[in-house]
């Protein structure tokens, strides 16, 4: 159950994208090249399909069509999202084209669903023509309209995005209070809502991994305080035995981030989107992430798409050039290239260089050395 192809037109800073998707996808590019914007396509699909979401809301939370449409899109006003999904021996294709009307409301221009090439949905249809209000919603979000392709609506709903901000786990009052907060605001809440047995078995596995990665880490427990607020407690073996347990506000950024990562790896089998999973982690931990993802993908078929700047992460020789996307900003837009489609990259890899050796220098800003002059700018 995964995405196998992505096509985009005029989505944010991408005029045109057409790439096959593997089970692991590594997005590499300079700052502000659009790595998060690319991942956001999948969050957008999830937001449309979500029970509390819908098309209007998904666009509104991104501040409207004009913010979503590439600034350089002049001739083709539609924003196009086109994804292919392999699911239980079926190949599905979902395509959504949208723009805005005179009232700046998002409007569906075209929505199609194919299953193994057969047309399951083709909009605008006769009803849409007679009542154009219908085009303010996709059929993806409507239970009474998506019966024929419910599996893909359910699939989109389950997409997970994670970009843990440790400060929000420590101090959930700062978060937006949203459920399923990708930044970790309700992370502990999510944990305590799990069935106890599942929670215990997952915590056990996480403790096993944390013990390997975090020196002296020993035990982990989750409990509610008298006000009902959930807390994580960790025991470190080098502390005096009577020093007691540490709660999550004393955990380091790295420990919290790793905990969040391990948790989300165990949670579900739907596609997972990660922003720079290497943040705050020691490089020796980071270089094992691709191996974790490979095994996870093999066991559960789970797809993971992540952005990264990490040489350590990309040094794993098992990462294939088909799994790596280079994002290269031009004056017009950002161009997405599959690393294996670039001949020079192929030659360097065949010559024995690692993905990190080849790809990271190509995504460095061209005159970045000039940054040092900033130190003299006062």
């Amino acid at each position, binding site marked *: 159950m995964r995405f196998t192809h992505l096509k985009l037109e005029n989505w944010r800073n991408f005029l045109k994208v057409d790439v096959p998707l593997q089970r692991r996808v590594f997005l590499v590019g300079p700052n502000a090249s659009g790595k998060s914007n690319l991942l956001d396509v999948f969050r957008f699909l999830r937001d449309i399909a979500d029970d509390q979401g819908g098309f209007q809301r998904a666009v509104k939370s991104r501040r409207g069509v004009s913010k979503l449409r590439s600034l350089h899109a002049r001739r083709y006003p539609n924003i196009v999202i086109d994804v292919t999904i392999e699911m239980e021996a079926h190949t599905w294709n979902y395509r959504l084209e949208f723009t805005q009307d005179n009232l700046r409301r998002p409007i569906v221009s075209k929505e199609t669903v194919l299953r193994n090439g057969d047309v399951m949905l083709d909009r605008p249809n006769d009803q849409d023509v007679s009542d154009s209000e219908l085009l303010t919603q996709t059929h993806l979000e409507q239970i009474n309209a998506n019966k024929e392709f419910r599996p893909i609506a359910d699939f989109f709903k389950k997409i997970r995005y994670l970009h843990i901000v440790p400060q929000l786990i420590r101090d959930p009052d700062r978060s937006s209070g949203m459920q399923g907060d990708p930044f970790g605001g309700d992370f502990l809440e999510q944990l305590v809502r799990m069935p106890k047995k599942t929670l215990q078995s997952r915590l056990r596995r996480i403790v096993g991994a944390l013990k390997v990665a975090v020196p002296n880490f020993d035990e982990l427990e989750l409990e509610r305080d008298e006000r009902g607020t959930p807390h994580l407690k960790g025991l470190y073996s080098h502390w005096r035995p009577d020093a007691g347990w540490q709660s999550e506000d004393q955990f380091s950024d790295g420990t919290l981030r790793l905990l969040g990562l391990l948790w989300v790896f165990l949670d579900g089998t739907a596609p997972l989107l990660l922003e720079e999973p290497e943040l705050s982690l020691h490089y020796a931990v980071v270089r094992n992430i*691709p*191996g974790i993802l*490979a095994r996870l993908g*093999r066991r559960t078929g789970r797809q993971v798409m992540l952005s990264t700047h990490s040489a350590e992460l990309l040094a794993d*020789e098992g990462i*294939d*050039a088909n799994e790596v996307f280079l994002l290269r900003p031009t004056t017009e837009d950002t161009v997405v290239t599959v690393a294996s489609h670039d001949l020079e990259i192929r030659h360097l*890899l065949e010559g024995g260089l690692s993905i990190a050796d080849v790809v990271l220098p190509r995504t460095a800003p061209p005159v970045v050395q000039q940054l040092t002059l900033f130190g003299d700018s006062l």
Partner: protein
Amino acid sequence: MTSPSISVTVEGNSDEALARKLLELAEFTVSYVYVQGGKDRLDEKLRAFNHAAKFTPWFVLRDLDQDAPCAPDLVKELLPDRAVNMCFRIPVRTAESWLLADRKNISQFLGVPMSKIGANPDDLDDPKTVLINLARKSKSKQIREDIVPPTNAVARVGPAYVSRIIEFSNEYWDPRKASKNSKSLAKCLLALEKLNQALTSKT
């Protein structure tokens, strides 16, 4: 008596597990492991590690590959002035040959008959490819998916290759048994034992 401590330099993530196993067998305590990310980086810094080895015991593993006809030639070229506590060893031709040398365990791990695994891995031109081709014939789908690169891949190895090599080195590999089939491994173990003796007899 406590075991002497030693620092380690290896090419990659997967070599670390193998080095630790060897040092455990030779009764060393590993203090630090310097993973280099490739032999070129290792070669560049070899002088510094050798300098440090004048003062602390050091174990370096570096694949022979096709860089010299035999291991002694490469040692002469890379490290003409070896420090007294430097144990610089060269698997012939890559560390995978040392893993293949433990025929029984590697055949079980890969899920292939032992008869498919040659008795003299030191003679192989490219042990890594041999190991991957063995995995290709594995009866286990997991092994094939993890170790063999997918069709159309540019990568020479499968997505969880490194992770599998680490797993095997840690949990299944028996260097003592393997050393019966690999001369370069046997020599490495002998050198480590000698170094250990020299260090412990001094104290």
